[in-house]
């Protein structure tokens, strides 16, 4: 070869090597510098990190891939995998959390895995914000990722319960990951997401002790006032709102058995002490739970069609729990003039339903027996009514149903019939969904169970025989559409079954669920604390119900009484209040601490009376003058069912109110003054906040029925029942809710 050709060859070889090197031929695809990786390179590099346990790095790479190519479904799936792997969440752990809440659980296995058998999955007494965050964050993030893959439809997705998932922007729609891949996992994770979502009050997918800090960023373009109001709305208890919500949530759910749902242990106050929050609370759970049910049902159907029996069996337990929870939550929605719990006979002819208008006239009226039964008396003139069993006249009560159940021997009928109540077969025809649900937590099952439990536990032999039990299995608690409304009845108007419950933590209609489909309307005693009497029976109609509303005006006369509670006597200076409470020469701080001591219904007042005279007056002579009544029994409703002088039964919420709602300054001054504060609290809590005494002449209460629409829109528990702004229609502008965007 000639010399010059060799030079050319050498030059060509060098050029080729240089070119190849510069063009990364010798650098494998996934080894390229991360800063210049394209979408697929980011996936490969991310997966390499995922395979080697570098989860945080993997998450970062997948997020970059999502940004680089938003339609790439793999980036979302792999990101979900990485984050779930980082927090060591897996199917068997999740499934075990559900299994351990069922009666069929392996107790030893649950104990070995440190899983509680009460409450709902992942929530147990020892749960902390940090520990629940380690569950919630990966679940919520994975749900978000999977939703990007699944929800590429341009149509809204209508979920069970009427909720709609709006269409998304079509992200992650490249089809590399099918819906079939994501759906089962999304369904399972949504179930957890839904159960924990109410804890994420600022909706940043985290449960932390810094509630609302994300809102500063989200509302950066808004004014400080708007930011503050949004924060107050979402994180009403400040930075620790989610911590406080978790503590309450644990109490709310500690006695809930997801395998055996009924509401006897659900205390709505633990969702929120503001009933106006309840629908939002329920929605935050039910939207993901509904979506979970939708996805799991889709998977289950596919498994059935393809005879995938073992897979079916493994998820059926979870599906049943999710379905039950979804139904249950749906029943709990309130104040929407909708029959949320399917207990209205069809309206014929069709017409707009109206709320079930009723008052509990005989609850505290001594003249009427003061039965405190919280039910809806059907007919005070019913000749079959037996006073020995006060509730037996209530609508839906098993004994009332029994009284209206007979065998019709007419050959054309020849079966058991009721003139008042629908049979299960009849209600099933109205709502086919109820008829086909034969699970033990179905609407019908709970109704039957409640009936039998009452008969077996509350009534003597003779009232729980086969004939009575037959009623439980035959008749629902639902009134027939043509059932007449008696002239003397707790039922005053409206459609039975529409927003029929009071928020009073009682099962007013005996259907096995309490506080479901509850109400909050003008002129109603919505929280079962109004001083209704039999003398009002027949005088109240839906049309004039507004006249019942309690009228009171804070700080109506004297200065210092603007204390957001109903002062008993506005002529007494606040200094005197404080002096009576704490003694000495009270300064303004002490006056402020004592400002609720002489308000109607307040816990402070009950504590004062408990200390002053206890249950019965110390001075009977003084008692003759109502102005000097000084004992609990003279003012307040007995909380328990027994004699408060001998029974230590307390109101179920009262002890909680002492801990949570009493002013700290008051507590600091009040309790050190007695050697046995526990006994004093117990004494005070044997009585409820419901005022029974006549209207004091100089009080801020000027007219209306005590307990009807008694609150003001001020985010304060005006009447001392532990709730704020309850018995009001809805949120409206005011000191508490102003500036809501």
């Amino acid at each position, binding site marked *: 070869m000639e010399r010059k050709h060799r030079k050319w060859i050498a030059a060509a070889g060098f050029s080729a090597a240089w070119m190849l090197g510069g063009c990364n031929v010798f650098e494998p695809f996934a080894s390229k510098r991360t800063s210049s990786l394209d979408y697929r390179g980011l996936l490969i590099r991310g997966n390499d990190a995922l395979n080697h346990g570098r989860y945080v790095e993997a998450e970062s790479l997948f997020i970059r891939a999502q940004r680089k190519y938003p339609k790439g479904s793999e980036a979302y799936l792999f990101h979900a995998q990485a984050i779930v792997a980082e927090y060591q969440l897996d199917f068997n752990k999740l499934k075990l959390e559900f299994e351990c809440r069922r009666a069929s659980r392996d107790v030893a296995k649950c104990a070995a895995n440190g899983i509680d058998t009460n409450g709902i999955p992942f929530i147990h007494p020892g749960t902390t914000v940090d520990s629940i965050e380690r569950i919630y964050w990966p679940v919520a993030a994975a749900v978000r990722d999977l939703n990007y893959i699944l929800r590429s439809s341009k149509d809204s997705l209508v979920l069970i319960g009427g909720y709609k998932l709006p269409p998304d922007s079509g992200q992650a729609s490249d089809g590399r990951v099918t819906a079939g891949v994501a759906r089962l996992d999304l369904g399972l994770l949504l179930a957890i997401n839904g159960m924990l979502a109410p804890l994420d009050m600022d909706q940043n997918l985290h449960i932390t002790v810094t509630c609302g800090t994300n809102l500063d960023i989200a509302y950066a373009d808004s004014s400080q006032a708007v930011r503050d109001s949004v924060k107050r709305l979402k994180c009403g208890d400040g930075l620790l709102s989610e911590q406080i919500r978790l503590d309450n949530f644990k109490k709310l759910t500690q006695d809930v058995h997801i395998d055996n749902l009924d509401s006897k242990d659900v205390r709505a106050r633990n969702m929120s002490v503001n009933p106006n929050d309840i629908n939002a609370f329920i929605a935050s759970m039910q939207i993901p739970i509904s979506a979970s049910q939708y996805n799991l049902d*889709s998977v289950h159907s596919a498994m059935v069609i393809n005879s995938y029996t073992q897979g079916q069996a493994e998820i059926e337990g979870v599906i049943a729990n999710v379905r039950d929870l979804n139904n249950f939550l749906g029943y709990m929605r309130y104040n929407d003039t909708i029959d949320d719990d399917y207990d209205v006979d069809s309206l014929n002819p069709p017409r707009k339903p109206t709320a079930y208008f009723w008052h509990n006239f005989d609850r505290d009226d001594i003249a009427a027996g003061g039965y405190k039964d919280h039910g809806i008396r059907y007919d005070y003139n019913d000749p079959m009514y037996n006073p020995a069993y006060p509730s037996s006249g209530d609508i839906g009560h098993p004994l009332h149903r029994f009284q209206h159940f007979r065998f019709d021997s007419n050959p054309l009928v020849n079966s058991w019939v009721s003139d008042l109540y629908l049979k299960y077969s009849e209600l099933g025809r109205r709502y086919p969904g109820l008829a086909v649900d034969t699970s033990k937590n179905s609407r019908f099952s709970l109704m039957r169970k409640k009936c039998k439990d009452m008969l077996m536990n509350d009534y003597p032999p003779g009232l729980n025989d086969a004939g009575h039990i037959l009623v439980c299995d035959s008749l629902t608690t639902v009134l027939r559409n043509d059932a007449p409304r008696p002239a003397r009845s707790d039922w005053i108007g409206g459609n039975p079954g529409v927003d029929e419950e009071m928020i009073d933590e009682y099962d007013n209609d005996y259907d096995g669920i309490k506080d479901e489909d509850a109400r909050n309307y003008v002129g109603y005693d919505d929280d079962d604390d109004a001083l209704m009497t039999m003398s009002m029976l027949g005088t109240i109609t839906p049309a004039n119900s507004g006249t019942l509303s309690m009228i009171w005006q804070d700080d109506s006369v004297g200065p210092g009484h603007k204390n957001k509670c109903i002062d008993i006597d506005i002529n007494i200076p606040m200094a005197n209040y404080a002096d009576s409470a704490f003694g000495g020469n009270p300064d303004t701080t002490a006056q402020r601490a004592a400002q609720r001591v002489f308000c109607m219904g307040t816990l402070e007042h009950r504590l004062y009376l408990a200390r002053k005279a206890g249950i019965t007056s110390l001075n009977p002579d003084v008692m003759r003058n109502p102005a000097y009544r000084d004992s609990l029994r003279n003012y307040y409703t007995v909380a328990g069912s027994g004699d408060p002088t001998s029974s230590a039964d307390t109101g179920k919420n009262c002890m909680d109110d002492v801990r949570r709602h009493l002013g700290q300054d008051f507590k600091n001054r009040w309790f050190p003054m007695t050697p046995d504060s526990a006994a004093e609290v117990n004494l005070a809590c044997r009585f409820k906040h419901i005022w029974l005494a006549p209207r004091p002449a100089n009080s801020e209460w000027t007219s209306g029925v005590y307990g009807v629409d008694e609150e003001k829109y001020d985010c304060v528990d005006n009447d001392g029942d532990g709730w704020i702004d309850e018995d009001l229609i809805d949120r409206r502008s005011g000191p508490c809710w102003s500036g809501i965007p």
Partner: protein
Amino acid sequence: MLEWDSVMKKHRPIAGIIAALFFGAVSALASVGPKYRGFEVDGSGRSGTASVYGEPALFLNPAGLSDLKGNGFETSADFGVNSVLLDYASWAAKNSKYIKQIDSLLLRMEPVQNKWAPFSNSVVMQGHYQDFAFALVEDVRYDLSLSKAVITPVMGAGMLSDLQFTAGRGFAPAALPDWRMGFAVKYLYRLRFPGRLMGTTDDEFYKVVNKINQPAHSIMDQIAKIKVASEVAQPGLGFGVNLGAMRSLPNGFTAGVSFLDFHTFFDGGFMYPQMNLGGSYARDFDILEGMHHRVIANLDWQIPFSWEPWYKQWKLGAAVEGRMGSRLVSLVALGLNDGYPTFALKIGYILNLYYLYTAEETGTYPGQYKLSFHKIGITLSF
């Protein structure tokens, strides 16, 4: 020079039509063309646009057919294995009965979790008469994976099976003494199921699961289950053209260009055309009596008209081959295919054994590590 100019003027309209067709096709793309290039090309990093010779030229540059003399026929078959495939077969022998139990499967799937097991095989019959050649090739690649969606198991499957009949001819234009040209036409029957994960609301998921759950009596039965994607694959038909040209340069250098699948109509659309530009250097030497040896070095650049960046498509290869007469009796090849190493060895007379090593890192799923493929085959040639 004048001669070249006159030729160019004569063929300029044809070149224009070709260019229009080429770029027109790019705008209506549908599928990637057949991957089969032949053992020799694969061993050299899939390079050889300027040096491929004989029947393999049908698949890379038909101009390589032009020097064929006499006649010949050969048939070969091979199959590829790798460690993941064997891991899967071994795992499936013990655990396939748990495939329908979510929790049991999750407890046992760790050894193979998220790994994609590939299986490939090809069967070739090819021959030539003078500079006319044909080939009937079945080239199949299956993939199977047991993966996780996020927390539950899902199946992954993929398949690409190309059955193609190709015939072509090379020629050397008298007017262009340094040039060789060629063309090939092909008929393609393709079964495909793009590799993807499948979950419990996908019909394909159940077909795959049921197949894997079937009893197996040997490790080959287990390997056969990997072909499950064929039960869900969709068929497609196509036909098209490969074109190519080579030009000899001084001192053993050659330049080549080929247009593959240019056009190939497939399933109502076009396949991605592929253009290869290559250079090669070849030098003959004789060290054994009765044998002719040749060392070949190739550098190719491929324009796939697909998503891959242009700078990733470099192919580099070198081979030493030995022939007795026109019969290839030994071959050692090395290469870099887009940066990934290849190696091939072939030896025999009439009956040849060959071994091919390739690697890839194109998978995207978690656990899809860099894969090494070992392909072993046998060729009978006359």
